[in-house]
């Protein structure tokens, strides 16, 4: 649905996005994840036609963003980072203005307006001035604005930023409920947002692509090393060389009072470790598997440990 190839954007000498390529499948929610200043907003602005790219290609629903910008703008709903609201309009007035400039025919405007207001839950504030409604409602007006022309593709730039925890949960539910007929791409620097709402993720840092794929694929890819930690009644670092003699153990380290083992996933050595401890009478009290989560992956990527 969204295909980006070798996208590059330079602001003068600063390269905000460098040679970025990824794909988003139809009908899925995809997260664009990265620390601040990673190039998320720039990427989204290019996709929506707000900014031209310096180089590369972007295709949304079969339309080239640079060759057929008007076709693309018609099928994209976009919520920018700063919600574009006119403070002196009422919610109703604002949404009908958006309906007009999004080319909804006059006969269908009222229906579209009503539907957007219902979906975003704005019934109670529809006659109030935008400057007088709360931050959470403003965000909802932003989402209603993006939805009003029933777009196939939704692009949401940090949709939950600045909201309180209850509002964040509401907005996430709202976004999940929009999935299905629509392809959604949302950007965030919060990993929990991705694991809770998204089907897949594109992780970028400094404008570079670090990883991309569905959440399952990514979790599988970080699992080429297995890990386990054990707890003993006594004993310290002096045991590490002994543990290293266990065939297959690639790395043993001490963390607090636990030993951490690492081995490659093609050979299971958990049984061997247990046997070793029992034979040497080390007082084994606890064994637990350590799963490398997507969180670890993200932290490693952000801290610069991993280069794809």
């Amino acid at each position, binding site marked *: 649905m969204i295909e980006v190839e070798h996208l590059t954007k330079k*602001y*003068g000498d600063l390269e905000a996005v460098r040679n970025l390529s990824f794909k988003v499948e139809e009908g899925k929610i995809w997260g664009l994840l990265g620390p601040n200043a990673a190039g998320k907003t720039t990427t989204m*602005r290019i996709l*929506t*036609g*707000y*900014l*031209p790219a310096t180089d590369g290609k972007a295709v949304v629903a079969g339309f080239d963003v640079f060759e057929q910008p*008007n076709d693309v*703008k*018609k099928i*994209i709903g*976009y919520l*920018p980072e*700063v919600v*574009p*609201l*006119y*403070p*002196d*309009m009422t919610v109703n*007035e604002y949404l009908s*203005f*958006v309906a*007009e*400039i*999004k*080319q909804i025919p006059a006969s269908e405007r009222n229906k579209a307006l009503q539907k957007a207001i219902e979906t975003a839950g704005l019934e109670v504030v529809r006659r109030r001035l935008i400057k007088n409604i709360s931050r959470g409602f403003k965000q909802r007006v932003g989402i209603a*604005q993006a939805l009003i022309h029933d777009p196939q593709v939704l692009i949401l730039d940090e949709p939950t930023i600045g909201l309180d925890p209850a509002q964040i949960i509401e907005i996430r539910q709202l976004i999940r409920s929009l999935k299905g007929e629509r392809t959604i791409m949302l950007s965030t620097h919060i990993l929990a947002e991705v694991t809770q709402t998204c089907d897949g993720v594109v992780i970028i840092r400094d404008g570079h692509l670090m990883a991309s794929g569905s959440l399952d694929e990514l979790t599988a890819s970080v699992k080429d090393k297995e890990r386990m930690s054990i707890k003993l009644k006594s004993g310290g670092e002096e045991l590490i060389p002994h543990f290293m003699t266990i065939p297959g153990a690639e790395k043993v380290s001490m963390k607090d009072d636990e030993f951490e083992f690492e081995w490659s996933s093609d050979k299971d050595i958990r049984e061997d470790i247990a046997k070793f401890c029992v034979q040497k009478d080390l007082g084994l009290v606890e064994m637990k598997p350590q799963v490398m989560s997507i969180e670890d992956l993200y932290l490693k990527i952000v801290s610069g440990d991993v280069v794809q």
Partner: protein
Amino acid sequence: MNNVWAVCKKEVKSYFTSPIAYVAITVFLVLSGFFFQSLMWWFNTQSMQMARNPQYYQQLNINQMVYSPLFHNISIVLLLMIPLITMRLFADEKRIKTDELLYTSPISINQIILGKYFASLLVLLAMLCLNGLLSLFTFAFGNPELVPILNGYLGLFLMGAAFMAIGIFFSSLTENQIVAAVLTFGALLLFWILNWASYSAAGMWRDVLNYLSFFQHFDDMTRGILDTTDLVYYFSMVFFGLFLTHSVIQSRRWR
């Protein structure tokens, strides 16, 4: 055209939901009304004095003695007011980041510019029409000539339209409304007084400076002369202002 209308409607609404339009129109009417009243008063005293001398009395002309100076005075008021009307058009969109909504919607930059421009012209039209109501008195109690008056108002409208186009250009340059207003005012005043420089210039420069000056073209129209040179001048100023606005917006996005 629908898109132009949508943008125009939104701008007119925002002029009239905020105090801007009301304040601008009221101040304009108070000032222009004051000029009208004092010119009429002066004309009255002149008439009474000359009533004793039939030869001079024949030469009294309300078009020349009231309307011509009135149009000049109003043009100065417009020079002061128009920067305040156009300053928000693009600057405010940028400040509150609503430009991102406009430029990601399926409407063209030209449609956005025209919509905003027409909205500002409607405010100008409202000002001039309300001011024109004052002429009801002159027609009720005197017999001025209609065509030169209409020509004068047309001149005011065309000059105001040229001012607006320059104002919209400066508004597109910055996200600070005050900066936009000050730049517009400076530019308008400079164009206004360009013909001062022509006194000391010679040859071709003299003609060029004279041609570029707002004042020179406006003066004809207040005296009831409708010259195509003046029309061409005003229309090219409007086109130039709007064209520059388009270039600025386009280049901002490419940077």
